Structure formats: structure tokens, C-alpha cells
């Protein structure tokens, strides 16, 4: 299986095609609903002035996200007696909720990949072509297994959003994903949707 280390170059991104299984290694950042809304409103559309540590976090995120990956995940996290965080369960959450924000976040921060489940829509697919970037599909439900590929929690931003919504900076090793949207406009979700529709139409015509 293909192994890819983050940060990821444009050449590597362009070489990825839908349907390809990949193992990811390196540093990535989790982010879901609250994080995406916050990034868009505060730094991209600027409809809300930065508050508290916003500006400082922004500068650090710019460095972390450049060439890296955002993971749609609301983890279960434990803190041990030394104050170190540990991921206990960390499966992907449904990505389509970030559809209004994702393409803009990718372009603004030069995010090369988005990990989640269920795939995303036309706007994100276009964002993947322009950035360029890809959508990586993780294995829904494989929470314990994925938590094991998180080797270290390097830090956390915006913990005030709550544990699942905070932005966790994590170091992963051999995180298993499949490319389901690529930088060339290919979407595995669209392909399977239409091929299964064809079979369904045929089955519906068959006598009982």
C-alpha cells in the first residue's frame, strides 16, 4: 500500500487517484463544525473580529496546516496523571456538514487533504482541483483502531469549543484512508452512485 508523509507536495497530491488506499504519517489537525465556522468567520470572510488568542492561534495554524491535512473527527480524549493527552476513540465524522466551508479553508491555508467519512459535494471537489488537494475517506466506526495510529497529541487549540470540537494537533503513523475525491475532478462517490443506480434500474425491471 502507498505510504505518504505529511506535509504533502502538489506533485504527490496530483498523482493520487480515486479508489487508492493510502497510509498517512506525520502531523495533522482535527477540526469539525465549530472550527470551520470559526476559521471562515474570523480569518477568511472576516465577519467577526478576532478575540482572545484568535490571532496567535491563526499564525500557528497557518504554519501547521500548510501542506497538511484536516481531519473531521470528534475524539474521545483522556488525560493521564502527567497531564498528557491520549486519544481513546477517534473515528471519522460525517463530512458533508463542512461543505459550505471546506473549499475556502483548503485554499486559504493550503490544506492538501481532508479526512472524513461519506464524501463531500461539488464545491469541495472544485476546491480539490484548485488547491490542489484530495479527500481521504477513513473507515467509519474504526474508532479504537484509528486512535492507535495516533502516536502523540502535540497540542490543542480552541479547547473552549469542547473536546470533540477543539482543534487537536496530532502525530499519526500509518493512518489508513482511501482517496475518494482527487485533484482531477474524480469522485468515487459519484461513480458508485451512478453505477449502483444503473444496476438498481435493471433490478426494478425484473419480474418478481
Amino acid at each position, binding site marked *: 500500500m502507498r505510504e505518504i508523509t505529511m506535509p504533502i507536495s502538489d506533485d504527490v497530491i496530483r498523482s493520487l487517484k480515486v479508489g487508492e488506499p493510502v497510509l498517512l504519517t506525520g502531523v495533522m489537525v482535527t477540526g469539525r463544525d465549530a472550527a470551520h465556522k470559526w476559521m471562515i468567520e474570523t480569518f477568511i470572510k472576516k465577519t467577526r473580529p478576532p478575540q482572545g488568542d484568535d490571532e496567535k492561534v491563526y499564525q500557528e495554524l497557518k504554519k501547521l496546516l500548510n501542506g497538511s491535512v484536516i481531519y473531521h473527527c470528534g475524539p474521545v480524549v483522556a488525560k493521564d496523571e502527567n497531564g498528557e493527552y491520549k486519544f481513546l476513540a477517534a473515528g471519522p465524522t460525517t463530512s458533508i456538514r463542512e461543505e459550505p466551508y471546506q473549499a475556502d479553508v483548503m485554499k486559504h491555508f493550503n490544506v492538501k487533504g481532508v479526512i472524513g467519512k461519506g464524501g463531500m459535494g461539488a464545491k469541495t471537489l472544485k476546491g480539490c482541483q484548485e488547491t490542489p488537494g484530495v479527500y481521504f475517506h477513513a473507515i467509519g466506526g474504526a474508532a479504537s483502531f484509528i486512535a492507535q495510529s495516533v502516536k502523540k497529541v502535540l497540542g490543542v487549540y480552541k479547547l473552549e469549543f469542547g473536546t470533540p470540537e477543539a482543534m487537536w494537533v496530532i502525530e499519526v503513523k500509518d493512518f489508513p484512508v482511501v482517496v*475518494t475525491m482527487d485533484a482531477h475532478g474524480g469522485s468515487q462517490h459519484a461513480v458508485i452512485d451512478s453505477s449502483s443506480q444503473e444496476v438498481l434500474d435493471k433490478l426494478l425491471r425484473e419480474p418478481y
Partner: protein
Amino acid sequence: MKDLTNEIIELIRRTSSNLPKDVEDRLRAAVEKEAPGSAARGALETIMKNIELSRKNSTPICQDTGTPIFRVHYPEGWSARKLREQIRGAMAEATKKNFMRPNAVDAVYDKNTGNNLGGDDFPSIHFEEVDADQPLTIELMLKGGGCENVGRQYSLPHNELGAGRDLAGVRKVALDAVQKAQGQGCAPGILGISIGGDRGTSYIKSKEVLYDKIGTRNADPELAKLEERLTEESNQLGIGPMGFGGQTTVIDTKITGLSRLPASYFVSVSYMCWAYRRRKMVVRGEEVEYD
């Protein structure tokens, strides 16, 4: 009456972290059907490793520990009210122990209660009285949100699909539900289908059939045949594990028939994800047995 709170906590632990053997066996058999190196095979292999890890570490198989749905058969003379209190107490305690994620969110005020106790409906508990010489049985199913979101209810006739009010029509809408679900319900899934009833009973029964083991067929040979046919035809759709494309989309189908009004003909399809978590405890006197 004996206090069973600790025994029920153990039931919750087992349900959340230890997938039943019949489900695991089916998933393992599905691995071999996918081409080596394919995305579908990779997904199933990861699922198998996840199942083993969760069992070993007593951690939730999936971080979405779902809607807890209990079914209780209690012998005449037991108090359903006290059993309900014990189940609710056990649920709060199991959440503290991280066997369950806090999953009860007040829909109006958007607030998570933090302990998996909502109103009377959360956790959902169904009581059924049995004869005094029968054991007490408590069954638990955890129904994930992602797969719940892809469930569907049809009112027949359905013109677009050409589905009339008969088993041929049931087959058509059920296949449509599988196609529309794609991989979103964390395929491979299990279908629970109920025919008839009103909108409410129809959905409830479509989940209740999921308490039965994989491979259990309806006693009616016509329905049994349709169950097998639907599993087979769903797999022809080629949606595959996680919607990556592949041989296995559905690992079993269960159908039940209800009474209906002359005016209505509902078909409800409940989709259960691969994390098909259900367990049972049987209490005879001092003895507690888990399945």
C-alpha cells in the same frame, strides 16, 4: 427484587465493546470476497482489527455509541418501574466509565445531558411481561446515528419506483433504500424491514427484528425467500464496504409483517451499520448469563 444495576453495566460494556460472534463471522467471511489490495478489502481488514482491539481493551467499537434500545421480558411479579430505574442508573454509570459516549442531546435547547439520560424515551426501553416461572431477559441494541439517518419509510403505492402494495413492491422500495444509503450508513449493513403498521409501529418493528441473530429467517417461507433475495440483490449494487465499491454491501436482511389499515401500506427500512452491537442477559434466580 434483586438489584441488577452492576449486571446491567456489564451488559452495556459487553454490547459497546464486544461485537457478537455471528456478526464478526459474517464480516470475516466478507474479507475474502474482496480483491487483495482493494479499498474494500482494506476497509474490512481495518474493521476486523478494530473489533479485536475494542474487545481486548473494553473500549467502544465506535465512538458513536448510538441510541441505547432495551427490550425487557420480565416475569410476572417483577416491577417494571424498578427495572427502569436500574437500567437508567446503569446507563449513567456506564457513561462515566467511558463504555458509552454522552449521546443524549435535548433537541429544543441543544444541550447534551452528559450522562445518556434524556426524557422517558432515552434510553428507549420496551417492557413485556412473561409467566412467573420464566427468566428475566434484558436485551440491548446500540443503534448508531449515521446508519439511522439513512433509514427510510415508504408509503405504497410508490409510482416513481413502480412499487405496488405487495411483496414485489416491498422488494423495490427496499432496494431503493439500499441504493440511496450508499456507504453513508457505514456499510456493510444489515436491513430490518417491516411491512404494514402505522408510521410509528412500522419503524419500531423494523428495528426490533434486528434483535435476532444473523441468518435467522422468517417462519413464513415467502418472506424468508425475500430476505435472502434482498441480501443477494443489494450486493449486486456493488456499493461495497464504506461505499468504496465491492462485493459486500449488506450482510443480512430481516423482514416482519404487521397489520395495517385498509388505507395505508407502509414499508420501513432500518439500516444497521456493520457495528451491529446487540447483547442479551438472562437472569434465573441468582444466576446471570450473558449472550
